């Protein structure tokens, strides 16, 4: 991935004060089904925005609408501060994208496929294809036809195509699909570098929570077409309450001691042996000693925090996704 530094020489200055992508009351209706319901999305320049949701939540539809691949039913999309409608020819060359599994010409090699797209885009750099392939770890001028590629190689070629013209904004729909664990880790590093080192703005969708939590600076949680939450990962971490999980032999006795001795009211009983104390400033050594002195056995005590998974579960009101 060091080649990246050669390929993208400098962090591009962005004179935009607004958002790279901004949607207002975006709605998409397929027949009688509303796939996207009044979504207000805000992707900041130079940051990675992770769009998180279950399969069928509306992530791809939103991306398709931004890329003009499906007409919007109502609402507004602004890209680079400009209204998308009517400015597509100026805006799209500044975007690189992968939507679903990327398709290429099966009778051509990876290099030949990229040469076609380089020509269509009028890519100025003569080495653009070579560099893009090197970045994603595919051989240049290889004789292997695209039809013989594995799913992972196809995905890499799709990413190479997306970055071929050095776009300012990348829209990546589940880009790690089909990659092996090492490939996923490499891709994560690569995407992070694109943003941190080279100032690329990235909108990435995934149904894999861990992937988004490791990658994204900002996160949007979408469920059944509704954008339930949009915040930065830092804010989200703050929001996710920290607590002390206390396993004891007698919950009722322990509760009484906490209330009487420590004047604690901010706690909840989870089950017959578990308490959740939300005041993390409490000196647990003293609490444990006091409980033991009062014949309450302390099985364990630990400081915990809600994970993104817990948070997702909480706000979608359902099962976790991955």
């Amino acid at each position: 991935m060091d080649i990246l530094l050669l390929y993208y020489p400098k962090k591009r200055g962005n004179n935009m004060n607004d958002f790279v992508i901004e949607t207002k009351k975006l709605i998409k209706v397929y027949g009688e089904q509303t796939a996207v319901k009044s979504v207000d999305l805000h992707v900041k320049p130079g940051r990675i925005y992770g769009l998180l949701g279950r399969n069928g939540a509306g992530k791809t539809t939103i991306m398709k609408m931004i890329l003009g691949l499906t007409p919007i039913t109502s609402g507004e999309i602004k890209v680079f501060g400009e209204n998308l409608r009517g400015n597509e020819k100026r805006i799209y060359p500044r975007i690189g994208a992968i939507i679903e599994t990327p398709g290429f010409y099966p009778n051509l090699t990876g290099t030949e496929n990229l040469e076609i797209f380089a020509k269509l885009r009028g890519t100025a750099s003569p080495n653009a294809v070579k560099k893009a392939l090197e970045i994603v770890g595919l051989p240049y001028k290889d004789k292997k036809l695209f039809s013989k590629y594995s799913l992972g190689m196809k995905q890499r070629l799709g990413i190479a195509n997306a970055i071929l013209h050095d776009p300012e904004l990348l829209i990546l729909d589940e880009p790690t699909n089909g990659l092996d664990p090492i490939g996923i880790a490499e891709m994560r590093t690569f995407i992070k570098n694109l943003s941190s080192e080279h100032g690329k703005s990235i909108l990435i969708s995934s149904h894999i929570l861990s992937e988004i939590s490791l990658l994204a600076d900002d996160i949007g949680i979408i469920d059944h077409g509704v954008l339930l939450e949009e915040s930065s990962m830092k804010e989200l971490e703050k929001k996710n309450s920290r607590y002390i999980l206390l396993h004891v032999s007698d919950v009722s006795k322990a509760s009484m001691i906490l209330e009487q001795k420590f004047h604690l009211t901010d706690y909840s009983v989870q089950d017959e042996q578990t308490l959740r104390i939300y005041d993390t400033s409490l000196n647990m050594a003293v609490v444990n000693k006091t409980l033991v002195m009062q014949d309450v056995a302390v099985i364990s005590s630990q400081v915990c925090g809600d994970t993104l998974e817990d948070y997702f579960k909480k706000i979608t009101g359902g099962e976790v996704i991955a």
Partner: protein
Amino acid sequence: MLNLIQTEFLKLRRKKMIWFMLLAAFIMPFFAFLFFEYFNKNGVDSMGFYKWSVFGFTTFIILPFILGVLCTVLMHDENRYDMLKQLWIVPISKMGYFFSKFVIVLFYSICFMMITAVTSVLFSVLPGFVPFEWQSVLFLLERCLEIAVLTSFGVLPILAIASGQKGYVFPFCMTLLYIFLGFFTSSVNIYLHPLSSISFIIARSGNIPGLASAQGINVPLALLCTLIWDVLSVLFAHFSLNRRK
């Protein structure tokens, strides 16, 4: 537009079928050779030979069929492998995309007819059926070029149909139906169908024996018929490409 056309040529790499279909250009000149060889005819009128080798089934059936199949092949991969979204993201103009395909069809049609013309001359002159005359050869080349250009415009409806289809069966069937309709309307009203119009435009001067029409050929009207079909085809392609994302 030039980039689009160049990439269309690049996309044809390793497509053996494209080369294989060119073999059809040899069919009628070869049959004409067999026919004249069988009847042991020497000193045949050159137009008599070319009527068999070029102006007959080649113009009416073989070329439109080959071009129809080509139109289907050109559109098929991108539809089948869901590549259009990749292309629209670039972005490229939808109609530019359509017309770049048409340029390939036109180029292929010209190549096909030039091969037919050269093969006809070789099969007629080398065995000694026809004496070599520049005048007849040039006439043949001129008409072959006309056939190539007009027929490629004539199959534009097939290209438009193929642009809106993911599969190849429907455009293929439509090619057969379209050719059959062209054949049928030539005996009813030549101005109803581009292929029948084209075949009569080719025979306009009456110097191809057996092809001179009993109807007075109105070339502008025949061209207008082709133009109307083509305009409708372009509109259809515009609609279907906009619908297909």
